[in-house]
């Protein structure tokens, strides 16, 4: 990490303001509000986790952050710059600093290209240096992700899932990005190698000063790797704070339920007897509930929750929540009743 970037650690590298992303349904009759008014900063050098159930809008935020899709409303600033205001050429070179990696390494790698050729590709597209220089950088990236030199000559089908994911990471690293959005990057990997890949992310962050946005539905993964975590429900953030705070002193009823639902590999004597089992499933983002979006499943919903959208407020330092009643003293996980 350079001295300059080390100094700026903690400053916002990405600022998201009132982000909205809407899609037309395939019959064009309705609009899906995939992301509906989200605000946050990602700080330089941190790992920012986003957690939520499927369809909550995590991937959509990730794609918007690297401008793979255009926000329907609101703004995303990179280092204070609005990339959409840049010229075409400037935009193309700017984008290299903000990369995204997805769950399935098979989809990201061309089966007919050698591993080295796959890693070289982004460098060639960006016309970086001479051919020899590009190859040197690609080999360096492979070495960084812990793949032996001879893997460069192999094809994707000759690699395991974990090794393929390493290649995809190497590919994202060649352009020396500042930020990488990691969308469910360990979900497809076997348990025994997930640890390896998570360790690799941590090493690269330390060595290269990278910033990550780590998207996952897996609470264990997010709490292991992130400094801060945001909890998403139906296109909105319901809670955001330091990981330890959110995991141990959650403020939002949805977060509390999510933590309680997580199956824990603990012996019976150490598992909590009562758990909160939410009724029903996530409503459709085409027609979300009025007021608080969680009210149809919330064990604490009140008439107010139907009428009024809860404000996004900083209830404790750096710990944000959107719930009318999150500051009630008796509103803690311990006093929550399990639904019958």
């Amino acid at each position: 990490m350079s001295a300059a970037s080390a100094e700026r650690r903690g400053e916002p590298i990405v600022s998201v303001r009132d982000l909205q992303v809407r899609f037309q349904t395939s019959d064009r009759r309705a609009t899906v509000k995939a992301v509906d008014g989200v605000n946050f900063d990602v700080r330089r050098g941190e790992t920012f986790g986003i957690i939520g159930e499927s369809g909550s809008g995590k991937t959509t935020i990730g794609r918007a952050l690297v401008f793979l899709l255009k926000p329907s409303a609101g703004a995303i600033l990179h280092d204070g710059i609005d990339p959409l205001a840049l010229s075409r050429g400037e935009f193309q070179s700017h984008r290299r600093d903000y990369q995204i990696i997805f769950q399935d390494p098979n989809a990201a790698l061309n089966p007919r290209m050698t591993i080295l050729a796959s890693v070289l590709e982004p460098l060639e597209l960006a016309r970086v240096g001479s051919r020899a220089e590009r190859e040197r950088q690609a080999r360096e990236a492979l070495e960084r992700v812990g793949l032996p030199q001879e893997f460069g000559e192999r094809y994707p089908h000759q690699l395991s899932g974990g090794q393929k994911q390493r290649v995809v990471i190497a590919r994202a690293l060649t352009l020396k990005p500042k930020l990488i959005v990691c969308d469910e990057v360990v979900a497809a990997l076997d348990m025994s190698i997930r640890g390896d890949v998570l360790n690799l992310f941590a090493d690269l962050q330390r060595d290269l000063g990278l910033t990550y946005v780590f998207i996952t539905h897996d609470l264990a993964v997010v709490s292991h790797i992130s400094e801060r975590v945001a909890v998403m429900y139906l296109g909105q953030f319901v809670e955001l704070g330091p990981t330890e705070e959110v995991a141990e002193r959650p403020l939002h009823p949805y977060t509390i339920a999510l933590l309680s639902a997580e199956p824990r590999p603990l012996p019976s004597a150490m598992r909590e007897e009562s758990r909160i089992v939410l009724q029903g499933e996530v409503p459709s983002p085409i027609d979300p509930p009025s007021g608080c979006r969680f009210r149809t499943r919330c064990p604490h919903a009140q008439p107010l929750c139907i009428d009024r959208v809860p404000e996004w407020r900083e209830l404790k330092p750096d710990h944000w929540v959107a719930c009318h009643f999150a500051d009630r003293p008796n509103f803690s996980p311990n006093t929550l009743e399990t639904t019958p």
Partner: protein
Amino acid sequence: MEAGQPAQRKAEGARDGARPLLSVRGLGIRFKTSQGIWQATRRIDFDIAPGERVGIVGESGCGKTITGLSILRLLPGNFAGLDGKILFDGTDLASCSARQMRAIRGKRIAMIFQEPMSALDPVFTVGHQIAETLRVHTDVSYEEARAKTLEMLRRVGIASPERRIDDYPHQLSGGMRQRVMIAASLICGPQLLIADEPTTALDVTVQAQILELLRDISETSKTALMLITHDLGVVAETCTRMITMYAGEVIEDATVDEALVRPLHPYTSGLLRSLPHLSPRHGRLPSIPGRVPSIAEMPAGCRFRARCAHAAKGCETEQKLQDAGGGRKVRCWRFAELNLPGALHPPDTPAAAKVATQ
């Protein structure tokens, strides 16, 4: 074993019980492939007692699904042979005729899968599909079948089943489809339910509902459950016993508590230690080096040897699934001398000590 742990006591009782419901001995499956005959699984031994809930865990490709399918004799087209015995309530399923199997499948042994959509027929209503299973196996009138279907839908937690019974599968959410699958599998009151990753495609809050339902049903109707999953948390929440598979073999068989606290096989221990939520936040995660050997290049001797930190001279010999005392089994000759960490570590935390001494 102390009081206050009814689930565990039940498992003990079941294990010492007279006759197991299912007794698999030396089960092995072969497939024809372009590279010759592949031995996908071999030497699988385990028992399931009536009403017992057993988790089958292991990484992708270790043979969990194949084992489940072979009990029902539902093997893919390139199936090339089955060794061993599958004793179910005294009958060897391995030597049953196709006709005998049809009478058992769906009635006495039922199976549910990860993706309920692929198991439900899109052109029939859910009510029709559930009632049909009942009508194939029992002599009931249309009205009786419909009434029983309604009752079963209610039982699996479908709200206002009268309104749902005539819905088509695509009209239901993922969680509701899995409930319908469970209703269809339970309608004939099977003695054994094989559930292959039944919650992997579901969100965590819906997963919690389905696991609670499976546990509840097995307790109240005494249906034995064989739960196939790669998620050790799911096993801990749902089952009383855990069978760990590696590279086509059973490598450990113990109660869930024993396996989590004091695993005897280095692979089980490695798996438990590599789980993120059990290690200190932001610390390095222990992981198992290397990868599962492919079927084509299975090593002789212990199949875990190339990845095992405890490999020694002697491990190159074939490993038997041996009795480790107290009803436990392990496929590692060094188990007694290794003192392996489990899910709680350091293993001498008061909580771990408390569990270990029970």
